[in-house]
């Protein structure tokens, strides 16, 4: 119980340290700007017989567009905040104090990691929910439909951010200097996004496989889960929906697990 209290105190301290003014305000403002502007004015004419399915597809399209617009800034924020959490503590000597405390290394790593990922996920998802609700809300039935659809974005955003958090942790634990770590992590996030913008005239047939990249896989996983249709004979439509979910989970853990092992097995002391 005491150790749980200590971990909770550490979590509170980490959250207040990383999300100190003006980080939280800036993150909320920037993501809100993207969320609100990515959804246009609602005007759509449909047949009454197909109304419910058309209404759901309108929400799914808006959600998919919103998540897609948010991911790049989220990766950049994730890079900066992870550097503030890990690299700055090494730089200022706070990490050494933390590691000499009775809290396990495992708890320190998970608390520091989640103190960034969870609030960022909640900010992003909350603003997606806000933007979708104010755009499509008309009655209680519509609100329930919106909630049923938007709730599925929550795990996908979390898993996507786990990947970028993992990269940023790797960079932070390697460089251990705040500014260089933040810049490198942002650059890495930007690169992961940039490769998805390449067209087939530049990279040939590889362009067909860009949906399998860490940037696109969570979006396609969400799209397939929500029943979004993709052009026939593309990887997005050929691969089953669960395939993209599995891929997203693998990406989420691909850096997280090695970094966890690196941190908890005291590799840096052996260095």
């Amino acid at each position: 119980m005491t150790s749980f209290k200590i971990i909770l105190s550490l979590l509170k301290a980490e959250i207040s340290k990383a999300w100190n003014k003006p980080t939280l305000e800036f993150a909320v403002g920037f993501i809100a700007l993207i969320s609100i502007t990515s959804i246009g004015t609602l005007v759509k004419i449909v047949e009454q017989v197909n109304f419910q399915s058309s209404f759901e597809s309108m929400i799914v399209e808006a959600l998919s567009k919103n998540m897609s617009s948010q991911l790049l800034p989220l990766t950049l924020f994730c890079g900066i905040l992870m550097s503030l959490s890990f690299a700055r503590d090494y730089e200022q000597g706070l990490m050494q104090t933390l590691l000499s405390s009775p809290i396990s290394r495992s708890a320190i790593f998970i608390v520091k990691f989640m103190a960034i990922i969870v609030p960022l996920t909640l900010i992003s998802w909350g603003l997606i929910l806000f933007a979708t609700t104010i755009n499509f809300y008309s009655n209680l039935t519509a609100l329930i439909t919106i909630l049923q659809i938007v709730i599925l974005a929550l795990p996908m955003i979390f898993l996507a951010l786990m990947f970028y958090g993992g990269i940023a942790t790797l960079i932070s634990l390697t460089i251990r200097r705040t500014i260089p770590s933040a810049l490198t992590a942002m650059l890495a996030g930007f690169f992961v996004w940039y490769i998805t913008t390449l067209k087939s005239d530049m990279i040939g047939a590889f362009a067909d496989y860009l949906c399998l990249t860490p940037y696109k896989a969570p979006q396609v996983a969400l799209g397939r889960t929500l029943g979004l249709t993709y052009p026939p004979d593309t990887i997005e439509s050929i691969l089953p929906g669960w395939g993209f979910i599995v891929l997203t989970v693998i990406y989420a853990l691909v850096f997280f697990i090695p970094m966890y092992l690196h941190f908890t097995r005291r590799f840096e002391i052996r260095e």
Partner: protein
Amino acid sequence: MIIGLILLMNTATEHVPGDFIYSYGEVEVNETYCYVVSIAPVGIGNITIGFFSPPESDIKIGNTPPGFLEPVTLPIHVKVEDPANQTLFEEDIISPYSFEVEFNLRGQYSVYLTNNGDEKSPIPMGVRFPYGEGNPINREADKFLLGIILSTLGMSFVALGLIIKLFLKRH
């Protein structure tokens, strides 16, 4: 305050664009067909019945495939209901026809079209708004109001916080 200001800025600058015309199949004689217009509260717009293209479009009817964009001439009974099921318009008309409707509520406006002609026919329906040039009428009224409320509340809290902080510092 941040979210309120962004919402206010967005709704103040974004206006509902242009024309939306849809046609789904043919309507039998005396059959009633219903379109649903999902729309934000953007104020006055025009509902067009029987037009396949905007009434004042530059498309030359003679240059298109036969009958492709020609307006449908048909006696139709039209009934428009707002999301609260209040009838906004109910008349017998001869298409092509256009009339104004005030979209004051967010939600689904039902447009019932009964073919009163002698043969089955497609009945295209559209919604038109004045084009561009920053038309301030057709913006989303509820988002604008929510933006004002959130901004005012946020500013009040900030001002209150500043006053309390200053007051506590002095005493």
